[in-house]
């Protein structure tokens, strides 16, 4: 039977031995799903809770409340999850080999950021089959900022042979509040990494799963090509803009109500909803320059308001558990 993870030994090895492990690695590239399973096991072995994707439409893994809200406050928090991410304006009707309106991000949050975060991260690359003495891995300055989340951090984009494969960020602020302590965030672009590892030029040619017995292998295109065609059309041409505008307003109002009712988690859901509807309106080309800034400010206010409400609802517990902690 084929090994489930090409480099199982690497998963449990201390970071400094990674190069040696990668050296003798099984060179059969992982399928898309095995790559995800390998990362799950790798981060699970390092104490992360493996969460599931958030069940709402979001633009990036950072929007998952497990990142946005949990990066606030003093409590340690170590999680990893895959987040399907939707970027309506990036749709290309399935005709571009690199661009998708729906793709996967692999997200890791470690709070507080461990001293060996870089080594742990590099270990994960080795685990999925990237040999750092064969491939040029570089940390290139990239300061991260999300105006819609009122968040920023410092870090890098990680390059593998010139291709950006991961965003590596030390969160400094979220929702306008200082992160105390700072969380380290890793965001892997799974399709890019997989295309790299499998050496394919078209995302739809990726091996999603391997053949097992009589069951044939499945390609990324088998799973997602039709989605890209239909959703590109819907995002750009079909979606009813009046409904979207009304939806945005409804979500914004509901967010406000939920904040006032002291249920910030529910409020935050509505902020996410408003953010995605705004992205759809952009794809439909119905938001002018002047309005764009206004909408973004609106979404930011909803996100910040939710973060503030979350802090308010938790801070008593936090200060009790972590004496001396202040906002």
């Amino acid at each position, binding site marked *: 039977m084929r090994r489930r993870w090409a480099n199982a030994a690497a998963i449990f090895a201390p970071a*400094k031995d990674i*190069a040696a492990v990668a050296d003798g690695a099984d060179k059969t590239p992982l399928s898309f799903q095995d790559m995800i399973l390998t990362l799950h096991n790798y981060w699970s072995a390092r104490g992360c809770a493996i969460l599931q994707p958030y069940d709402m439409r979001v633009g990036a893994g950072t929007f998952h409340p497990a990142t946005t809200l949990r990066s606030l406050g*003093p409590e340690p928090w170590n999680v990893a999850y895959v987040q399907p991410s939707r970027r309506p304006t990036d749709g290309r009707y399935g005709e571009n080999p*690199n661009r998708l309106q729906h793709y996967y991000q692999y997200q890791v949050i470690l709070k*507080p*950021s*461990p*001293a060996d975060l*870089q*080594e742990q991260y*590099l270990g994960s690359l080795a685990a999925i089959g990237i*040999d*750092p*003495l*064969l*491939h*040029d*891995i*570089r*940390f*290139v*300055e990239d*300061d991260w900022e999300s105006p819609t989340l009122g968040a920023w*951090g*410092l*870090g*890098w984009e990680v390059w*593998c*042979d*010139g*291709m950006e494969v991961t965003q590596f960020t*030390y969160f*400094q602020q979220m929702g306008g509040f*200082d*992160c*105390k*302590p*700072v969380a*380290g965030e890793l965001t892997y672009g799974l399709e890019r990494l997989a295309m*790299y590892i499998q050496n394919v*030029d078209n995302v739809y040619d990726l091996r999603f799963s391997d053949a097992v017995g009589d069951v044939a292998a499945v390609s990324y295109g088998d799973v997602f090509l039709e989605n890209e065609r239909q959703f590109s059309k819907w995002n750009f041409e079909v979606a009813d803009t009046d409904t979207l505008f009304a939806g945005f307003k409804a979500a914004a109002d509901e967010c406000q109500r939920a904040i006032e009712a002291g249920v910030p988690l529910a409020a935050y859901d509505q902020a996410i909803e408003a953010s995605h509807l705004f992205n759809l309106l952009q794809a439909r*080309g*119905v*938001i*002018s*320059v*002047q*309005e*764009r800034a206004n909408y973004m400010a609106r979404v930011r206010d909803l996100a910040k308001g939710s973060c503030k409400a979350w802090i308010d609802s938790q801070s008593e517990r936090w200060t009790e558990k*972590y004496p*001396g*902690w*202040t906002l």
Partner: protein
Amino acid sequence: MTDFLLELRSEEIPARMQAAARAELEKLFRAQLSAAGLEAGDLTIWSTPRRLALIAKGLPEATAAVSEELKGPRSNAPPQALEGFLRKTGLTQDQLEDRDGVYFAVIDKPGRATAEVLAEAIPAIVRAFAWPKSMRWGKASASSESLRWVRPLSGIVAIFGEELVPCEVGGIASGFATRGHRFHCPGEITIGSVSDYAEKLRACHVIVDHEERQAIVRDGAAKAAADAGLTLVEDEGLVIENAGLTEWPVPLLGRFDEAFLEVPPEVIQLTARVNQKYFVVNGADGKLANGFVCTANIDAKDGGAEIVAGNRKVLAARLSDARFFWEQDQKKTLAQHAEKLANITFHEKLGTVADKVERVAKLAEWLASEGIVPNCDPALARQAAELAKADLVTEMVGEFPELQGLMGGYYARAEGLPDAVADAIRDHYKPVGQGDDVPTAPVTVAVALADKLDTLGAFWAADEKPTGSKDPFALRRATISIESLIIQNGLRFGLLPILDMATQAGGTAITNASKVRVRRAMDAAKAEGLGVMAVTGGNAVGLKPFGQYSMAFDTRAHDLLDFFADRLKVQQREAGVRHDLIDAVFALGGEDDLVRLLARVKALQAFMATEDGTNLLAGYKRAANILKQAGEVSGIAATTPPTDADAALLAALDAAEPAASAAVAEERFTDSMAALASLRAPIDAFFDGVMVNDPDEAVRAYRLGLLARFTGAVHGVADFSKIEG
């Protein structure tokens, strides 16, 4: 004498910050040592992405002992004074020295061990270090007071001689251990002293000297290209950046699909440089070839084949995007692209880019038809100006803003517009700063001049002038560019009326823009939107209708002309023209023809370099002083000159005045200086031979009148009171 090594190891420092960080480390180290009474001497400062290193050679073992002497109160002073002095010095009365009735405290400060000074200096340096952006990290960041660094700080090596300098900052204690290359030698290495530091690191695949890495990138990239029969396109910025991204740089040559070469070479170069930090190469024909050089950070096991293959793939994806933009943009004419400029705000007070384009087109056409820009077809000037900004809304310029102008030129040529128009579109932003090429093609000059004059006039009308260090719309640079265009092309015209036209056009734009704003606010149209060009002054509130702004048109234009005078001094400084002489000519007033003004200034400067010039200036200053003390001076009385010296000066003035003014009128400025020079001997003789303040009131008045005429004659050429020296 002992050597000191400091290494501050961190996670990857952005390449662009490393040079400033080295300077900061040196500055802080010197300051710390000097505060302790030590001279830091020659320092070596190195940087890699993961470390800053400092080596100080030949430090003394200890600071010198110092004896400080403080003067105190007199011994018969009230007891309170003595008590205060004892408190201040921490001594007792019997420790003081009584010297002739005055107490002195002599305090001996023993020397301190240098190691001790260093142990205190290191944490202070780390805490005071100024990064452009810094961050918190790890467990300690639960507190707001936690240490900040550019990226997490992970280790400190501090060795004085062969001894550890024990210190600690932010929970990081100094030690002998550092780390080698992230992938080649990830383990710890132990440093013994300054002398083995660089070599131990080199053995662990780290070249700590950034200049050595830069040389490897520079030479290695050139060699990689040459080995393939290609020539590297040199780019020192890329050399430094790649050296700042690597500890063990290995330049590698790759190739891309030749078919991409149909895209303009500047686009390929920019794509490679900005997005990927690659060098590009030229072929034997001197044209861009289908090669690139990337800089890896490892000695790859396979010699770099996989790295090159990966980088090639990334570049191919980038170049396909660029080619897509290139093809997409050409599906429309520039005129069609230009229609979208009506959706782009130039400045909230000044309306859209389309409004600006129309103003510029009108002005460019006028400059041509008036012959201010000679040999320029007004229709071509208008056409070029109308299309000059169209590329701002193309995909390519959206992706690479630095290609503005250049892409417009390419697209204009591709759609078969006249070369003069395409060149003008390409070059109308020039000159960008001093040292840039100044356009000479007439259509280009007309558009370049009109564009910048309009920008200045409009922002002046909108009261958005530069203040102090703030010049958000680069108006100082625009002014210098206008001056370069005028002077280098010898354009003859009075600036003032044109500045007036430009500010008035700006005023109209403000009125129109405010009308549009009101209309737009009323119908919240959800029209298709594009980006804002560059400029939003900050606050969108309280825009006054034009006319309520403080200055009237004419003062506005005069104010702008003064601004030109200031910039002219800056612009001419490099050419060695004295700023005080520019003032001396500007101060005459009414001179707004820059070419004529500069000719006059240059003749004056040549004159001031002669003996006649300096003596005449001395004579002028003496005369001006006497006149100033005398107060009001009436003209020369129509009497006979009291002495021969008076008569000689009078005769000289009678001859020099008409000669000087005729020469000025005919722009023979050297001749006007010669006419002034003829006054030098008579004025010297006058001061030698007579006393102005003669006891005889009538004689005194006569002589004052004579001096007033002399200074007046000099002022006909330049205001000598502004001349220094």
